[in-house]
């Protein structure tokens, strides 16, 4: 009994709920990747072991699998913390914001950097629960500042919006270059 307890103590970590789900996920991922080793990497006949293209993927995935197995063991031996699935629900909820981010990235080449940024800043502020007109205006202004800072001043490499093509000639040139 005492030996088992010591093992528990050795592997005990500061944990949060949902740890074991992540531990299982990482172990499954590393085993799947390791199983693909022969298929996804090449072996050069006659070459030294350390210079093989397969060497580092094998070492890293092998190591990852071993560590993931021990991580899972540690998780399984520790006391269960309530709220596991609630936590996993929160991870899944973050996918919504990942979706917002990708949608924003899709929108910029069409709607233009300035309009897309202002629109998304206000829409996201609304989504996250801000309703006061003042906060929404500040969100819009911050978006303008970001655009001016990066696109107008620092000339960061971002595409011009297709929508700008429909603007009158003089304005079009300015918008295409600076916003």
């Amino acid at each position, binding site marked *: 009994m005492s030996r088992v307890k*010591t093992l528990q*103590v*050795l*592997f*005990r*970590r*500061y*944990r*949060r709920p*949902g*740890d074991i789900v*992540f531990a299982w996920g*990482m172990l499954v991922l590393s085993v799947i*990747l390791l199983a*693909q080793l022969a298929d*996804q990497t*090449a072996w*050069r006949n006659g*070459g*030294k072991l*350390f210079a093989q*293209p397969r060497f*580092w*993927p094998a070492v*890293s995935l092998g*190591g*990852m699998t071993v*560590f*993931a197995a021990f*991580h899972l063991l*540690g998780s399984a031996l520790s006391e269960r913390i309530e709220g596991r699935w609630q*936590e996993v629900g*929160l*991870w899944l*909820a*973050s996918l919504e*914001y*990942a979706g*917002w*981010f*990708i949608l*924003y*990235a*899709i929108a910029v080449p069409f709607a233009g950097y300035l309009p897309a940024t202002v629109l*998304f*800043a206000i829409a*996201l*502020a609304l989504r*996250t*629960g801000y309703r006061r007109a003042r*906060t929404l205006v500040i*969100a819009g202004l*911050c978006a303008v500042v*970001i655009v001016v800072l*990066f696109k107008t001043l*620092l*000339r*960061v*490499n*971002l595409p011009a919006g297709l929508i700008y093509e429909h603007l009158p000639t003089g304005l079009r040139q300015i918008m295409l270059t600076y916003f």
Partner: protein
Amino acid sequence: MENLIAGLEMLARWDVMLALLVGSIGGVIIGAIPGVGPAVAIAILLPATFALDPIVGLTMLLGIYGSSMYGGAIPAVLINTPGTAVNALTSYDGYPMTQAGEAHRAVSLAYSASFWGGIFGILCLILLSPVLALIAPMFGSREIFLAALLGIILVILAHRGQIMAAGMLAMFGIFLQTVGLDAVTYTQRYTFGYSFLSSGVNLIVVVLGLFALSQAFFLLTAADTSPDARPVTGRMGTGIRELLRHKRVATVASGFGVILGMIPGTGEFTAQFMSYTYAQKTSKTPEAFGKGSPEGLIASEAANNAVPAAAMIPLLALGIPGEALTAMMLSVFYVHNVIPGPALFQNNIDLVYGLYFALIALNVIVMVFLLFSTNLLTRIIRVPTRFLGVMILLLSFVGVYSLRNSLTDCMIAAGFGVLGLILKRLNLPIVPIILGMVLGGIMEVKLRSALPRLKTPLDMIDRPIAAVLFGLIVLVLVLHLRTLIREWRTHEPDKDHDMHDSQMR
């Protein structure tokens, strides 16, 4: 001497000075806002700096790196929430002082100790430079390989209580950098037939996902709060006089910062804990620690601010980053075709001196700025957290998309953002993934280039520095095993703690 002047000349340009000013003041503000740390800011700004001159881009990032911890002390002292994770220990003694009505004393002491640590770190860097220039050329491929290997081992072992998780994530990082077309044999590795994976997984996309986007997701999915710091009254200069009464603690703590800053994988956290313990053990009033002891505050702030300069040593001399921020800076060097490593000290010593002077200048700028603007900062840090999340999301887009206008990059970054969120929620470290990617790449390249000269495996360690590094690797592993065995025998392992340096950046 002419190198020193050349270094000074590098700084005497309006764009460099502006970058330094923007970087250092921006860094203080970013550090002071709980929820954004230097890693988020540097990750977002990285692609923007690629268009600038190397010295301009580097001084701006260096400014953020070196100054954020000054700012991070403000919320640590005033509202018991460290602005950056490395200010966590500052709140132990800083906040009780605020509760006792001594907020201005605590804040000014924190600034003074930070300044002491910062300048001490740079002086050590300058004094060590000639030695580095002498030793660095002795590092060949096998020595750099062994140093990177030591770095990986230390990164894993430094996460005590989470070694299995840190090991798993470091290995994941090493694996990530192998994805794509192998540079020597031109064979595909883990591309699964997708052309976008042939060029590999971009480090900056991963960094932006893991640090910036994950922080946005973290703030957006949590409840909205608004840190409430009260303005500070009193003269800010008083801290300097009080610091001079605790010169010994400040200097020893800075020394810990320098030594641990140089060792990859250890950094601010270990330096802080060690110097705090030292200060408590040697103090005349050890019982006051944790209840508002000025010595505790000094130990913590001096130690963490000495680290940035020291962390430059392995980065500049060997091209080996010790933690996530220097790993990000390494990519700026690479983009500008300045390869940090032994050759840098021979060919670009003026750039090295330029960076040293930039570090000194930023400490002075920040100190002067803080003496006059603490109350302004207490107002800035009241930004509601979800609003901050929205802004980080918008800014992350600039970082990812401006790299090569790729939607795929945005998707990959979003994926890593979710992974980063899970790690942050689980209190698991992010840094091992980044260091795994960078050090893994270095290890692969250096081992390959060392191979033709090796006849037996023992040739790997037949040179003095290689042998010393190998000895260190063995020593670190043996010491770790000894600690494990001791814990096994006494049945009393270290108390788990809730602080990991990747959590709050």
